């Protein structure tokens, strides 16, 4: 495994240089993570959650470790999806925070900017959160990320701030095949609300191997809505792992539109630690050619009276593959939990594959939980019905597929996002959305 050897020898040789200038609490975590990674290595088909996800196309390649800033400042864009929406816009390029103000304190007290800068400027604040949610992960890519990240996004929303909207453009933009690691820390204090619109993008035809790890803390009555649009090139992989700690009466909503990429893997872990929490995780994945899209969800209910809901839908064409693994854990004290999970798929060809694995693990006796999974083809009766009204076979199929996606799109709470999202999905289904030289999402919303 070329990639693994490269990583190990690179870190061993450059350890002092890589980790210099960082506070001890970060270096310690990095060292621990590196040791863990050395022991476990990259995931293989033998690992339970990786049995359907073959990394062989990536692990035998050489990826240039993107530790030095390789950012073309001229290539930055203000927003990724909704030009007219007033938002705070940031760019993450090849693992680095890009732009003029790399860390700033806004008038309302929000601290936002480069995670690397934040570690140095606010070590005490960062220390009480950093790596707390990630450290026990059994996914070696999280250890890789902890050991190797240099930068990412830091956001601190102080108590009472309820109208913060952020657009993140995350780009894989290196001129060489690059190993890219982004690390984010987001803290929402009590009674706050934030919307995040994130676009994962790539504008080169290079193969990248990218990890994007976020730790997110939602304090009492904090609300976070996170919309993610993923559209990277057909040779790159992106492993996006989000960890959430959700406290009393907080609300988390995420919606991922996984539109294009050789391998997109989204893992989300929500630890519900307080009462009356609401967690809604939605996702729509559209894959074709030889693409693969994975969604791995783990929701842990530790406290009573909370609600969680997972709803993921996918359409797989050509020889595309999908993997859905959703787990709900209801601990002994988590009485009156309502937890739901649903995964629906349409396979358009005989070669397309989905592996859907729902899990429920319940130790409390007064709960309402359900899970389900469906996989089907285009409804031939409906297809004939639509065609009988004069609509072409292709359009009849598109109409049905687009209708299938409606359930996910309809949950979007931010009005300005609805039309661009519909447009993006229609174009993707119609085969119009494909790689372009500059920026995929930009050309999709022209």
């Amino acid at each position, binding site marked *: 495994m070329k990639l693994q050897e490269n990583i190990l020898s690179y870190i061993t040789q450059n350890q002092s240089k890589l980790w210099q200038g960082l506070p001890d609490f970060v270096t310690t975590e990095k060292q621990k993570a590196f040791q863990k990674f050395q022991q476990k290595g990259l995931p293989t088909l033998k690992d339970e959650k990786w049995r359907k996800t073959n990394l062989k196309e990536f692990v035998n390649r050489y990826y240039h470790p993107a530790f030095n800033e390789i950012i073309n400042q001229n290539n930055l864009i203000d927003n990724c999806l909704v030009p007219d929406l007033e938002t705070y816009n940031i760019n993450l390029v090849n693992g680095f925070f890009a732009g003029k103000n790399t860390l700033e304190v806004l008038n309302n007290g929000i601290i936002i900017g480069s995670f690397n800068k934040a570690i140095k400027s606010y070590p005490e604040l960062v220390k009480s959160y950093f790596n707390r949610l990630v450290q026990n992960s059994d996914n070696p890519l999280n250890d890789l990320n902890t050991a190797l990240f240099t930068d990412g996004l830091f956001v601190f929303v102080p108590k009472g701030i309820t109208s913060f909207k952020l657009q993140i453009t995350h780009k894989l933009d290196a001129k060489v095949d690059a190993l890219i690691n982004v690390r984010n820390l987001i803290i929402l204090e009590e009674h706050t609300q934030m919307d995040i619109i994130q676009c994962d993008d790539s504008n080169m035809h290079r193969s990248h191997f990218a990890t994007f790890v976020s730790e997110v803390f939602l304090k009492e009555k904090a609300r976070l809505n996170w919309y993610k649009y993923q559209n990277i090139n057909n040779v790159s992989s992106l492993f996006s792992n989000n960890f959430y700690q959700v406290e009393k009466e907080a609300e988390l909503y995420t919606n991922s539109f996984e539109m294009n990429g050789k391998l997109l893997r989204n893992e989300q872990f929500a630890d519900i630690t307080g009462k009356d929490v609401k967690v809604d995780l939605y996702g729509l994945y559209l894959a074709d050619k030889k693409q693969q899209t994975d969604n791995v969800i783990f929701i842990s209910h530790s406290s009573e009276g909370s609600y969680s809901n997972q709803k993921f839908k996918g359409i797989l064409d050509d020889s595309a593959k999908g993997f859905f693994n959703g787990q709900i854990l209801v601990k002994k004290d988590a009485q009156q939990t309502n937890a739901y999970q649903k995964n629906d798929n349409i396979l358009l060809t005989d070669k397309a594959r989905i592996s859907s694995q729902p899990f429920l693990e319940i130790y409390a006796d007064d709960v309402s939980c359900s899970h389900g999974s469906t996989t089907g083809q285009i409804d031939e009766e409906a297809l004939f019905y639509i065609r009988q009204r004069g*609509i072409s076979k292709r359009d009849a199929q598109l109409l049905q597929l687009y209708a299938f996606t409606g359930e996910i799109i309809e949950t979007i709470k931010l009005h300005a996002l609805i039309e661009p999202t519909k447009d993006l999905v229609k174009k993707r289904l119609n085969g119009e959305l494909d790689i372009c030289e500059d920026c995929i999402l930009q050309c999709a919303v022209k």
Partner: protein
Amino acid sequence: MNPILEIKNLHTKIGDKEIIKGLNLTVNPGEVHAIMGPNGTGKSTLANVIAGKDGYEVTEGEIWFNGKNILELDPEERALEGIFLGFQYPVEIPGVSMTNFMKAAIDAQRKYKGLDPIKPGEFLKMYREKQELVNMPDKIKNRSVNEGFSGGEKKRNEIFQMAMLNPKLAILDETDSGLDIDALRSVAEGVNKLRSNDNAFIVITHYQRLLDYIVPDIVHIMYDGKIVKTGDKELAKELEAKGYDELVASN
């Protein structure tokens, strides 16, 4: 006068089983034909074969529509040429609203004629007019196609779509089944309002009942894959009185 539909010696198989065994039928503009017959004689198969549904093999014979041999045409091409099928079991299409569905159908028709898509205002006006014509409740327009519709609403919706698309030939496949007398009457009223000298209807039914409201010009009895008897509207009454067995046996 050229016939709208001309079927010559049609033989059709589903898998290995021959369903239609040498059927002849000529439908002229302005005519309403009723096809009656017991279950399993091939009435619905005939409707599906004319509309071009997959899964039926035509082993012999021809179907001419407006002077065109349509056997090689796709279902949508036949629809655009002017063939409408009112389904016995209208299909539910979750997530597709009635208005979007009809807009797509109208635009497909216009495109076929070389016209631009219909303007939204014009479309809504037409939609309202046709709704009124067939007594279709307005609340249905925002719902998904046939989803959660009652049996009567589904059938009425077929007639509504027919009114929107204004076909040359409408085949109504057991539109009366499962309808109470009021729904039956309003479906029939819709059909009667749409009758003209330029179009034609084929009404497939088990029972004489519907034909009290949609009065046919010609009645055919279909039995074992063939039309075994043809007559005027009195034939339907005779059938009701005698039953299929006696009528077919006397043939």
